[in-house]
């Protein structure tokens, strides 16, 4: 029964591919229909946590059983995937008119949805691995369908990193399979707990490698910027919205279901938290800082938002790693909110790209007059991202702060504060350079995006505000998850959450905020009417300016701030990996020259040499 959630999208993928060949819109329509079906049937699944499905296979002397099961955690992720994919599908129906690879896009996109649901429902390593590989491969093709040269390089780096990690995962999984006789998580968990801590920690770290890569955590985050920056504009929301989250799902599985926390309980602790999970939290903190600093520097808006995703993921990692009930619910809240507002931002940017064709911020400006709705969507989304009260972004960050303050982790708190305040900066930069400021002459006549692209943005705005005011909806599913994973729950009502040292009542704050707003509005409207004046007619202290270009302050928006971190950003991690591959190539080259291959004499010499060496080896043993 569960399998049809996985195989219907995959089957539909091929149909979409064929139909899309004939007419451009068919593929996206099918994707929308399939994800709608998924959304409905998955939400119907709510509450029935007992459905499991397993089929076993005796393959070449190995008895392997594949088990699928529904639990609150996987249900949440599945619903999120379905929801975001239906929005993207709607958006891409007519945003892909002139997109060369639109049929390839739909084919791979549907397979990714199917495999993601497969990953989430999998309860054993092999099914997880199979769908994981499927997802990695299809996303590789999708990313490389993006901008010409860079997309290829980005996808290339992405596939090598994630494939390498996936193979390490496979090796550890098979090792466990040999010890316990089955791939299932539960038997693996028992084995790991019983096993010697050092070895099981090693195993669990290797198993969590692909998840670290996919979640873009510090040392392995290099692929995120290029992949998100260069992927096709419809796929970036999914990539940074959902794909990063699957990494987090994996981390949760490793931490809780494979009982990573139980194992490291007795290791040396720092302020009551086992050192290893503190290390993960520190990694999260470092991700926040690097993500933020690099985001501020970017000139390409998609890369900027990509880096912001990395830094936001840092919050989620911290939340999970400190293993307190508040921390966990905070990170889950942030996970859901991040998905919502990050995909709104990317969709808004996609709309902008769809109309203007460029992603460089300094080439745009003043689009608010031409694309008001996109501006509104973008505004609400960045208010949420920056974590300003009436929106859901603030709630999740507030809960994470509560968790941090409750346990007094100062350095993590500093990183979190830095991340959220700096997010005002890098969030505001696209707002001011793209939407506000001078409208460039060539963008004079662009219109708002067509209706089908407006609907997803509208829905997302409503959802942001809805969850902003009533976080209770999210909290009830999160509590079920923490209950399932064995963490105490956080008490909440529909519109307020009880933190460690202070409650949060979103309804009240919303009322007060609107009250203040009304007072200001009254004050504004009583005063004299003001005369509308064109954009160029501004006070320029005596200077006489004619064209819009020189009037738009956009390039290197935060130059003074960037100057502080110029040297740090220069030696980015990618060069480290770049040099790594370079010596790999050089070593191959050196080997070839060393063997002086190509000359016949050497071949003959080597065969006799082999005989002599092996005889000597044989002699010694």
């Amino acid at each position, binding site marked *: 029964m569960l399998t049809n959630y996985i195989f219907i999208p995959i089957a539909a993928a091929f149909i979409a591919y064929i139909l899309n060949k004939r007419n451009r819109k068919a593929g996206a329509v099918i994707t929308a229909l399939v994800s709608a079906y998924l959304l409905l049937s998955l939400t119907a699944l709510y509450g029935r946590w007992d459905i499991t499905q397993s089929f076993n296979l005796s393959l070449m002397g190995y008895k392997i059983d594949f088990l699928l099961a529904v639990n609150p955690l996987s249900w949440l992720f599945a619903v999120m995937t379905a929801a975001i994919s239906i929005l993207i599908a709607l958006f891409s129906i007519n945003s892909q008119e002139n997109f060369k690879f639109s049929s390839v896009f739909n084919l791979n996109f549907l397979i990714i949805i199917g495999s993601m649901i497969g990953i989430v429902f999998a309860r054993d390593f092999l099914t997880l691995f199979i769908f994981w590989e499927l997802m990695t491969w299809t996303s590789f093709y999708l990313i490389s369908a993006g901008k010409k040269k860079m997309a290829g390089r980005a996808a290339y780096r992405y596939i090598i990193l994630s494939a390498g990690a996936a193979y390490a995962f496979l090796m550890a999984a098979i090792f466990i399979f040999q010890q316990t006789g089955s791939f299932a998580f539960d038997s693996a968990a028992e084995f790991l707990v019983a096993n010697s801590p050092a070895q099981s920690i090693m195993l669990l770290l290797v198993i969590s490698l692909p998840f670290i890569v996919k979640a873009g955590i510090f040392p392995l985050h290099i692929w995120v910027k290029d992949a998100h920056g260069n992927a096709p504009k419809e796929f970036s929301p999914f990539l940074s919205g959902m794909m990063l989250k699957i990494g987090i799902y994996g981390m949760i599985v490793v931490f809780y279901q494979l009982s990573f926390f139980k194992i490291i309980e007795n290791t040396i602790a720092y302020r009551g938290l086992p050192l290893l999970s503190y290390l993960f939290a520190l990694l999260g903190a470092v991700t926040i800082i690097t993500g933020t600093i690099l985001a501020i520097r970017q000139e390409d808006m998609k890369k900027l938002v990509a880096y912001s995703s990395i830094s936001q993921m840092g919050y989620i990692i911290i939340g999970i790693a400190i293993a307190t009930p508040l921390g966990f619910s905070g990170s889950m809240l942030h996970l859901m909110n991040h998905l919502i507002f990050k995909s709104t931002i990317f969709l808004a940017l996609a709309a902008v790209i769809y109309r203007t064709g460029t992603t460089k911020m300094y080439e745009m400006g*003043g689009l608010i007059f031409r694309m008001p709705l996109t501006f509104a969507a973008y505004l609400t989304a960045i208010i949420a991202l920056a974590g300003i*009260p009436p929106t859901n972004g603030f709630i999740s960050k507030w809960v994470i702060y509560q968790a941090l303050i409750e346990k007094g982790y100062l350095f993590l708190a500093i990183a979190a504060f830095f991340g959220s305040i700096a997010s005002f900066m890098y969030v*505001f930069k696209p707002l001011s350079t793209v939407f506000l*400021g001078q409208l460039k002459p060539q963008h004079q006549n662009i219109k708002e995006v067509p209706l089908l692209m407006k609907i997803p943005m509208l829905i997302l705005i409503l959802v942001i505000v809805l969850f902003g005011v009533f976080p209770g909806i999210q909290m009830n599913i999160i509590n079920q998850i923490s209950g399932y994973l064995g963490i105490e729950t956080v008490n909440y009502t529909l519109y307020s959450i009880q933190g460690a040292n*202070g409650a949060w009542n979103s309804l009240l704050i919303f009322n007060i*905020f609107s009250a203040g707003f009304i*007072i200001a509005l009254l*004050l504004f409207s009583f005063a004299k009417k003001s005369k509308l004046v064109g954009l160029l007619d501004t*006070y320029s202290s005596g200077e006489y300016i004619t064209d819009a270009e020189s009037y738009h302050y956009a390039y290197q928006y935060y130059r003074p*701030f960037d100057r502080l971190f110029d040297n740090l950003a220069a030696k980015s991690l990618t060069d480290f990996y770049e040099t790594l591959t370079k010596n790999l190539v050089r070593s191959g080259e050196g080997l070839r020259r060393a063997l002086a291959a190509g000359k016949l004499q050497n071949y003959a010499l080597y065969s006799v040499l082999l005989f002599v060496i092996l005889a000597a080896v044989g002699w010694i043993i």
Partner: protein
Amino acid sequence: MIDIIYRIGHFVLITVFSMALGLLFMGIARKIVARIQKRYGPPVYQPYLDVLKLFGKDAITHGFIFDFGAIMALGGVIATLFFIPLGSWQLYSMEGTVILVIYLLAIASLGMAMGTVGSGNPQASVGISRALMQMLGYELPYLVILFALIYRYQTSSVWGLMQAQAGSFLNWNLFAYPLMAAVAFVVLIGMMGKKPFDSMIAPSEIGSGPVVESGGKYLGMLLLQKSITIIIELALYVNLFLGGAENILIFTFKMLIVWVLATMFGSLFPRFRIEDGIKFFWKWPLGIAILQAIYIIT
């Protein structure tokens, strides 16, 4: 039903009171700075005249976002007002937390920023970008202080923190943690954009920054917003470090002292460049705050 009318009445009362008080403080500040610079300076009630004049004049606008920005700025600030206990008047300070107040202030600045950048004037955008950078500078030490305080008193509501300092004035935070109070004072100056940290609205460099385009009622509203922000920040400082006050009079008196000290302190120093400002904030205030926090945590 009566309760709601009473509430609304209370709303309006507090807003008007704080606007008036804010403007008064601005007038006093102008007086003090003039006195330091050996000149008489405008009368104390000058800001009231300016506001009335401004609301009388007609102004130019650059479209919807320009208006929306001004309204949102003023609205946000008014909303924040109700979460801070002013002496005995404490409307909702039980619920709101201190972190909430910081972020609500952010709404105001975001609204103002959006409005001014919407005007299309490059000087405004430069001003805003400087403001945001500076905000990053001073917010970090401030949040570390709050972190330490909340951890120390295990409550994050402003009212709670204030109550914790009840009793003799000895256990005001000013005396319990003098270093922290000093850092908070410096941050206060940065927050209010007073002298050493006012590169964002520096009249000489970028034509008084963000407000360059707003005239008439927009300038009036921004002035009002400025006044309420001053009141909020002073109230916060008083509540957190001077143990709040039983009634409004003592509270205003304490606020006045802090305000005078800040203006005097401010007018002594030349203006910081932005990155030096940030570097300064991150070197001394942040360092001391972290040391203090570590002292409190362990």
